[in-house]
């Protein structure tokens, strides 16, 4: 409950008409961004705790996995996915019906294998990041491609986890 308070407070502040319409002074806009960023970071603690409870096979088990999100994915930058060769993507569906969702994140490798919760490989695609995105001022990332896959039929108000593994690209040479 305490973890949620900062976002509650931020949402209270953001109801001011300046925040709604964008008529605040520029330094106030920066302050709004600061308040929201810190609030969302605090909420990651509670969402991580909740997901840990879901992935425990025994209630007494203490798996303590740190689930993080990528707030800079709007400039195709994510230090976690770029610098980790083997990781898990967990997709949570907040709707009350199953949905299929395209997941996209930046990577540095040349080839990846993604398997679903049953260990079955899923279709993946590496898409080049557009030149005009690579040159956005302030972007600090060496990724030049996004990895895309389809999270199919995520259960209502539930989640699915996928394992992502960087693999060596196999080049066939005919002699």
């Amino acid at each position, binding site marked *: 409950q305490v973890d949620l308070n900062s976002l509650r407070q931020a949402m209270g502040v953001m109801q001011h008409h300046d925040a709604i319409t964008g008529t605040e*002074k520029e330094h106030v806009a920066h302050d709004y961004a600061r308040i929201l960023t810190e609030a969302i970071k605090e909420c990651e603690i509670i969402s991580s705790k909740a997901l840990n409870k879901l*992935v425990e096979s025994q209630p007494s088990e203490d798996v303590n996995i*740190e689930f*993080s999100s990528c707030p800079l994915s709007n400039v195709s930058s994510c230090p976690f996915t770029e610098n980790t060769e083997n990781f898990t993507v*967990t997709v949570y569906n907040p709707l009350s019906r199953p949905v299929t969702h395209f997941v996209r994140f930046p990577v540095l490798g040349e080839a990846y294998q993604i398997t679903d919760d049953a260990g079955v490989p899923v279709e993946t695609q590496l898409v080049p990041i557009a030149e005009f*995105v690579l040159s956005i001022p302030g972007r600090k990332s060496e990724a030049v491609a996004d990895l895309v896959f389809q999270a199919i039929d995520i259960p209502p108000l539930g989640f699915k986890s996928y*394992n992502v593994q960087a693999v060596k690209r196999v080049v066939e040479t005919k002699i």
Partner: protein
Amino acid sequence: KETNTDYNNDVKLEIDESTGLISSVTMNNITTPLTQEFLFYEGYVGNNEVFENRSSGAYIFRPKNNTPTVATNRVNSTIFKGNLVTEIHQKFNDWIGQIVRLYKGENLIEFDWVVGPLPSKGFGKEVISRFVTDLKTNSTFYTDSNGREILKRVRDFRPTWNVHLEEAVSGNYYPVTSKILIKDPVKNVEVAVLTDRAQGGSSLRDGELELMVHRNCLHDDAFGVDEALNEQAFGEGLVARGSHYLVVGSADGGAAKSERDLAQRKLLQAWTFFSTIGNQSLEDYR
């Protein structure tokens, strides 16, 4: 002109080779001529002493001319076809780029626009994305201004009094919380654009939709903020990025069904978390 992208069975688009712009769209078994491009209005600059001389600024949108300037006459487009998504990377100019996406099995076209840093010399620019179709819409368009119901808007008209608009562009602009659409009842075609954030939008000519995506105004409008709307980051103007989702369907309910499904999936989008599997094996984790 040729079909450059026939990625899946349901959604197709054509690109005009001479302009690099989209020229037609096929979706939900309907093919309609449709062009999407970027333009910008020049912000009015005045001395703010009387209302007529108010500058375009944070509070008010006042273009100097009623006709926006086209961002470019020739778009550089690069197509990346794939098994899950086909992307068209379009560079309009040094400060406008866009990625058009067609996803496997999805009845929509995503327009992922990247606008900025806007040039901060000369005049303020108020950038719009405009969709042009051949639909006969009888001056009517629809917006979801209050986020609950779709409201009918009629150009140069107010439902409860006789209006004469002094400012033909901004007087016809309405808030768009998540959707703006036009319909041709005779052809039974509806074209809707869903937004990922609240924006201003209008239909200034029959068959057209426009949404404002970014703006800088180099003069204060004297309504209270007391500074020009020219936000900076990293020593340059801001870059705005967002998505428009285009849906074409039948006007008698087919399109509305797709739009409702899409709105739920995009506005209450799935959350993605990244983690390692901790100190357990992958099998245990599964």
